[in-house]
């Protein structure tokens, strides 16, 4: 008799197909800040939902913090003596749009800073055309530096930006280049009638976007946080406001509501063109670069409306930038005003036809716009804001590696755009050039303000090295670099194979090693001797010739750049650094593509306040005491990957005939308060410790 057999069932085989991961992670945030929720006019649009792409398998998963691929939130509140529990965005209760907006719950604060900062990162990265990294300033080494790029410890690449939502009890938030962190403050405004006792800077979209942009900019330009002229920190402030401002135009509900309310105008003061409302109110004063920017635009309008030519001239003079404007926010305001002006001009040109159609259809001044028209205007505004943001971000690869000025930034914007989008039917570039000129931002050494003369000059082919011998030309450099994760036998600088194939590998970690390897290989390439070094020097704006070469040519070495003695022949050669070697893949609005290698070559020279000491030190005669400041020069090289040819060398030479730039920086360093004759100068180079903390404090 057969025993009754139980039907066998293999549970092991019971594996349902995995659910697809959601495409996006949606997180709630205030569209502006908590204050806007208590205002009837804005309450209904103040709830924003930010969509971030769901983490890819090659990215760090989001863990409690939140801690993700680019950002980690750590909520230590030392002034309260507390450490808050981290929000877990993967908790089932939070998978649908996260925590609801709440001022009183620290975990919502963590969610909002994470969401807004990540949104800023993604849009920046898209515009730049490559993966971003953060930078960190380390204290300078006490020993003299050595030539190898790996020994250069002063800036290091950091994978994750850190955010402290409740780090300070003050009316301030700042980016710390030393900690690669954003520190947000909270405070009690004196006027308690505002209803909210504590105001949290980490709950303002604008402030988060602004501070994140400081960090992004530092990641792209490591020297941008050390002042060498009036524009350095002003550019940081202005650029951060530009990014924060243009992000307003990504919020569809807000955009439609505000465009309807202002009958399609972007020049009227509205939520769209103001920053940090609650913060501003709590300040009880006007603040920030954008505030200056809007003042400028309004003064322009008043000037235009004024009949008296003298009055008009006076007002126009007040709205152009001079060296008398010293404070970083004030100065940055001129940059914001210029970009905002260009943006609005383009918007008005591109929507003129829509407005004409509406008027033909019976729209009169004072009428409400039809919802259709509002929708069309909103989508135009959003598209143009995106274009303008991309233009502004792309330009960062076209500026000199050190000591940039506003005028050079304009040239960078125009050149970068021309390279990618040769035709300019909507006159974006003309709008930019005009808007900058109106603010008095005129680049030195460019013939006129027409876009074609603002484009960086192509290298003069007569001056170019032939590459017949020695280091060869740029194709020779490109052979040494890695351009993708080619899954081949890549080795890093220590000869260890880079394994791209291991599952679960982190893309940015691997890529960081590739970037580093490229940087080192580019440095090795640069260190190859060439009989044409004198030509290379002119092209790159740095000293390259060894003492032997100089002797043969009857020239003297510039002793204030730093030198090292070579082992092979006992000759000395100047130290040069590669700040960065990155590949950018850019795409234009009509599908244009451009792949470039961006190489930053920089050299350092000792600077002295006293020109006589400088001259002695330059000749190598003994000079007592330490140098007073560091003077840097070099170039940004843009090499087209289609043909390996150099397109631009954006140069700031380490030494010129009259050393005018050295003199300018000397004046700047001696008179940080604007009057070098007042006090006895500090000796030794000044490091800007926490450069962004002070300029926000009263």
């Amino acid at each position: 008799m057969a025993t009754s057999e139980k039907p066998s069932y293999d549970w092991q085989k019971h594996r349902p197909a995995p659910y697809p991961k959601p495409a996006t992670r949606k997180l709630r945030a205030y569209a502006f800040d908590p204050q806007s929720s208590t205002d009837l006019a804005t309450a209904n649009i103040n709830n924003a939902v930010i969509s971030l792409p769901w983490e890819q398998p090659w990215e760090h998963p989001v863990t409690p913090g939140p801690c993700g691929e680019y950002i980690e939130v750590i909520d230590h509140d030392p002034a309260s003596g507390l450490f808050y529990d981290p929000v877990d965005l993967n908790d089932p209760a939070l998978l649908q749009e996260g925590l609801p907006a709440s001022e009183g719950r620290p975990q919502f604060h963590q969610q909002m800073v994470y969401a807004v900062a990540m949104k800023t990162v993604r849009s920046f990265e898209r515009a730049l055309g490559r993966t971003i990294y953060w930078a960190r300033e380390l204290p300078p080494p006490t020993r003299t530096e050595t030539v190898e790029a790996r020994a250069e410890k002063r800036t290091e690449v950091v994978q994750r930006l850190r955010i402290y939502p409740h780090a300070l009890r003050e009316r301030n938030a700042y980016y710390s280049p030393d900690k690669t962190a954003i520190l947000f403050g909270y405070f009690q405004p004196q006027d308690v009638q505002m209803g909210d006792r504590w105001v949290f800077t980490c709950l303002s979209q604008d402030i988060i976007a602004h501070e994140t942009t400081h960090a992004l900019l530092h990641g792209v330009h490591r020297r941008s946080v050390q002042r060498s002229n009036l524009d350095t920190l002003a550019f940081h402030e202005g650029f951060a406001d530009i990014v924060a401002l243009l992000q307003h135009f990504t919020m569809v509900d807000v955009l439609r509501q505000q465009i309807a309310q202002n009958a399609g105008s972007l020049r009227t003061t509205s939520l769209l063109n103001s920053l940090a409302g609650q913060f501003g109110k709590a300040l009880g004063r006007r603040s920030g670069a954008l505030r200056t920017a809007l003042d400028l635009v309004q003064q322009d309008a008043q000037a235009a409306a004024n009949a008296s030519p003298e009055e008009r001239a006076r007002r126009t003079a007040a709205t152009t930038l001079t060296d008398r404007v010293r404070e970083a926010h004030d100065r940055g305001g001129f940059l914001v005003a210029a970009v905002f002006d260009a943006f609005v001009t383009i918007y008005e040109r591109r929507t003129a036809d829509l407005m004409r159609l509406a008027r033909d259809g019976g729209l009169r001044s004072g009428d409400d716009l039809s919802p259709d028209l509002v929708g069309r205007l909103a989508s135009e505004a959003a598209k143009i804001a995106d274009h303008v943001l991309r233009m502004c971000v792309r330009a960062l690869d076209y500026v000199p590696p050190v000591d940039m000025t506003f005028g050079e930034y304009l040239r960078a914007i125009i050149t970068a755009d021309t390279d990618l989008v040769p035709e300019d039917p909507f006159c974006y570039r003309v709008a930019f050039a005009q808007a900058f000129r109106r603010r008095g931002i005129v680049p030195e050494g460019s013939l006129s303000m027409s876009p074609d003369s603002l484009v960086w000059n192509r290298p003069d082919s007569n001056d170019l090295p032939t590459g017949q011998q020695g280091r060869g030309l740029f194709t020779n450099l490109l052979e040494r670099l890695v351009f993708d994760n080619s899954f081949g036998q890549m080795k890093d600088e220590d000869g260890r194979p880079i394994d791209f194939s291991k599952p679960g590998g982190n893309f940015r970690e691997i890529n960081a090693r590739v970037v580093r390897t490229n940087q080192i290989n580019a440095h090795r390439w640069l260190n190859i001797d060439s009989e044409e070094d004198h030509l290379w020097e002119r092209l790159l704006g740095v000293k390259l010739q060894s003492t032997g070469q100089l002797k043969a040519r009857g020239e003297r070495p510039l002793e204030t750049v730093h030198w090292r003695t070579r082992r092979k022949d006992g000759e000395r050669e100047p130290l040069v650094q590669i700040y960065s070697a990155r590949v950018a893949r850019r795409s234009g609005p009509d599908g244009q593509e451009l792949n470039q290698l961006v190489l930053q070559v920089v050299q350092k020279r000792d600077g002295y306040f006293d020109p006589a000491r400088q001259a002695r030190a330059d000749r190598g005669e003994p000079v007592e005491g330490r140098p007073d400041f560091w003077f840097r020069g070099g170039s940004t090289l843009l090499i087209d990957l289609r043909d390996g040819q150099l397109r631009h060398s954006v140069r700031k030479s380490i030494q010129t005939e009259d050393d005018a730039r050295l003199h300018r920086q000397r004046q700047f360093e001696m008179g940080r308060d604007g009057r070098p004759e007042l006090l006895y100068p500090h000796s030794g180079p000044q490091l800007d410790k926490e450069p962004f903390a002070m300029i926000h404090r009263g």
Partner: protein
Amino acid sequence: MADPRVTVRMYQGLMGDCFLLRLFDANADGRNGVAAANILIDCGVLQNVPDEAARIARVTADIAAITGGHIDLLVVTHEHYDHVSGFGHARSLFLDGGLTIGTLWLAWTERAGNEQADALRKVFAQTRKAVQAGVQRIRLAGEELAGGGEGLEDFLGPQDGLAVSTAGLTVAQIIDGLKERVRPAPEDYLEPGTVRTTPGKLGLRAYVLGPPHDEDLLFRDRPSRKLGEGETYFGAWMREAFEIEQNFAPASGRSLLNMPFGSVYGHVADKPFLDEGNPGPAPEDPAAAHALWRVRQKYLDDPERMIGSAWHGAVSQLAIKLDSDTNNASLVLAFELSPGGDIMLFAADAQVGNWLSWHEQNYPADDQGTGLRVTAGELLARTTLYKVGHHGSHNATLRALGLELMTSDRLTALVPVMEELAERRRWGMPFSAMYERLVEKCRGRVLRGDRPPDPAVLAAQPDFEARIRIDPAPDAKLGPAWIEYDAS
């Protein structure tokens, strides 16, 4: 009558200012006995200097003895502890009648009833409260003020109700006590651009250089943010000081400990949580505990990236501003040793704005206020004795419009500084670039609060050596109590 002979005694070992000017009759024999007139400029030692009380006690005892119990003129330059604490320490002498004081000179900023002065004192007082609230919260966390303002609270002196060392007196109370005791006349609150003669049997003409009334020059920084509509500078500053006090107040109306969040949301006390000895959660503890723990690991992973004392910055910045604005409100006097002749410049702790203001006005050349006008440039050119500003710090001796205009080849300097002590608090005093130039301009004739004069200079310049006397009975631990110099 012949011009008096003047001897200036600088008290040493203080990290504070205390100068006794003794005026002798030129016809009398030598400089023995009690002087014809005694002028005391400030008397203070920095708070919390080791042996604070002992250091100042020997100074005040010396003053009482050498003046014979009478001071013809007392000058108080500004409201800093290191300039006035001696009056509190030696309360019985200065406030309770142990010494007689003929006249008290103060800056116009101390005058009650003057609208600008009242506003200034009010905002200073509120700022002190804010800084002290901040420092208190910092101490509550078991930390000391960092972020640039290290030790600056010691210039402010004790808080209300917490004064121990100065017989229970705050800086403001000491000054009020002196005012009550001496009852200065309205004209004893000195106005810049005027000239007075010091009281006593013998007198010197004194040019009043600062502090200025112009607020652009009076304050270190104009606010970096623009003022709101209808807002004044004092208003904006007052608001900021209130806000900072509120931020750091130990308790508030709604929250016992002045906390930003209700206690229902997950949190832990940071110090024990971050403590090295914390073993962390056990496997069976809730997932939330482990999540928090993992964040802790990230945080501690790189100590340089931790935020540590960054939150002190708000307090530090306010303390620095208060400190330099108080310094800048210093009363600055230039004493003339003979008509049209040598000048002794007592710059107190005046900073850039105060120095600049001297050049904005001219000074009457005679007591009637008529006749020729003298410029600050001329006074500086005639200066032969310079009491260096603010212990030789970087921004209290102006360059082109200050030291470089002191062109007398007899220039001598007095620097009341204790370098080692300043270094410990990370203050650059004396500031090297300024100090080097000072030594050069004086050809080494620099007398300091913390060391004897350079023997090489004394050997090379016997005239200089002949003008100097040092406390003949130095303390074994604290060194000599004074060094003095015959200015004329």
